[in-house]
């Protein structure tokens, strides 16, 4: 892979990742497009610019870790790992099929380069805390990034982990909330309101940054700010659009968990050309 901090190049990569997401979900005929598309810029900025990692050395002990706690957005992670060179690009269209390395939710047994398996909401932040604590004890420079869904933070375990992170001053952990405002059953505000969101994280003792989650320069700046914070973990609230980049999916709760049809794939790819 070729790393870059050039915004235009990162935007091109983001478009490529979106195309992969649409194609693989179309082939799979099931899966979660909305929350995969909303997370693209964050994942691309992390893997191509921000994170210390090397696809030639997947077991490098000083690598930064990324945990997709909102495991249903697996397609965005798979597309990024494949384009980085960790796994097969050609096999992306085997998503969700028997024996595929690209299981419905991230499964380390099938894809060992994953940091761990996820899919049951609420669990990733705690795991990130353990990783952060071990890295600090070992005086390693590595940082841990964990992506949470906005609906996901309705889970109580998230707030157990939030208390833990501030108490133990884990400034090598960044939690990203992909705040696309939609969960499976509808708008977050109608299912279980999570506002005032930034205030909650601040009250739990986290350095909190609100950012446009589709603006790569804003994300770059936010991650740099997070890296400079000492003594507390950072919550990065990425304000995003569910289904971003595909007009008929944007802000449409239907596409939380419904794959595009053949015709919809064609329309989407035209928009992402």
């Amino acid at each position, binding site marked *: 892979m070729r790393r870059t901090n050039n915004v235009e190049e990162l935007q091109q990569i983001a478009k490529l990742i979106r195309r992969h997401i649409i194609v693989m979900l179309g082939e799979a005929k099931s899966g979660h497009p909305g929350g995969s598309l909303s997370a693209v810029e964050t994942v691309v900025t992390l893997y191509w610019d921000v994170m210390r990692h090397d696809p030639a050395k997947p077991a490098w002990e000083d690598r930064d870790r990324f945990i997709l706690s909102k495991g249903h957005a697996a397609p965005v992670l798979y597309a990024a790992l494949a384009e980085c060179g960790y796994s097969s690009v050609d096999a992306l269209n085997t998503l969700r099929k028997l024996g595929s390395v690209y299981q419905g939710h991230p499964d380390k047994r099938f894809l060992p380069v994953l940091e761990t398996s996820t899919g049951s909401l609420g669990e990733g932040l705690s795991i990130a805390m353990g*990783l952060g604590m071990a890295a600090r004890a070992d005086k390693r420079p590595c940082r841990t990034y964990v992506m949470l869904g906005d609906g996901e933070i309705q889970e109580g375990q998230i707030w157990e982990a939030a208390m833990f992170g501030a108490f133990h001053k884990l400034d090598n952990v960044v939690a990203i909330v992909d705040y696309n405002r939609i969960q499976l059953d509808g708008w977050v505000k109608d299912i279980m309101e999570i506002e005032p969101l930034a205030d909650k994280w601040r009250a739990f003792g986290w350095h909190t940054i609100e950012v446009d989650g589709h603006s790569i320069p804003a994300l770059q700046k936010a991650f740099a700010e997070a890296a400079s914070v000492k003594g507390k973990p950072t919550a990065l609230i990425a304000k995003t659009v569910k289904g971003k980049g595909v007009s008929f999916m944007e802000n449409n709760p239907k596409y939380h968990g419904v794959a595009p049809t053949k015709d919809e794939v064609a329309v989407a790819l035209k928009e992402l050309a």
Partner: protein
Amino acid sequence: MAANTKFELKAGMATREAFGKALVELGKENPNVWAVDADLSKSTYTSLFAKEFPERFVSCGIAESNMVGVAAGLALAGKIPFAASFSCFILNKGFEQMRVAVAYPNVNVKIVGTHSGISIGEDGPSQMSVEDLALACALPGFVVLSPADETATFALMRAAAAHLGPVFLRTGRPRAPIVYSNGAQFEIGKAIQLADGKDVTLMAHGLMVAESLRAQEALEAEGISARVVDMHTLKPLDREMIRRAAAETGAIVVSEEHLVDAGLGVRVAQAVAESAPCVMEFVGLDRYAESGSPDGLLDKYGLRAANIAAAARKAVRRKK
């Protein structure tokens, strides 16, 4: 092996205390051993580890779900974390995390439950763990251990730390009768025959091993020859030991301080059905208990040598 087969069995330390001391020993030998705790370190004896190795002791507060997740993260970074709490809390509140964050990706986390069974006593059923073995045994890849005394706890702690993969180790609150002499050898998955016999086999784990030994003596006086087997590993089961017991004695009594519908007994029954079907009887709990002294509870809820001996007599009668 050299079991203490002629009784009185002397009272030793509680298996939870043995766990805490063993953890300190392991911590001295291996800098990767960590302890993870949820505000019960004085009761679980992880406080001993905290005193010795404060930099490797993680306080989680009263938050068992997060605790198990944190342990998983530590293990993914190469540590050997022992996450400890009362069995009922860590198993029930941490079960989802034991499933998805530990068992499913096969992460090297050790879960230790203390205050198991009803012998915790006065605190009552909300603190009593009588489902923990059912839950732990349900998880693929988990090794499940229930030591009978302090020597067994020390040895199985060592085995748990050396084993690469998830382990649940169950300990108790009261002092445990000494069953083993120092230096007894333990291996995960290898049950230990403590006494030989030809009419019936008494299988047990934890505190019920000592009760089975006492039952054996009572049965001997009546002319019933009972074999006694410590099934310290509930998973993986020692199927060969079970097959031999079934084939050679023709009757098995399984006793445990756990719900009888979901513990060692049903697991042994499955192995018996698959190898050498024989008469079986089960001694265990069928309901939530109540507050009381540990001894009073074990008497009232039928977890005594007398109950095991009665089950053995019944099993022997049923053979004919």
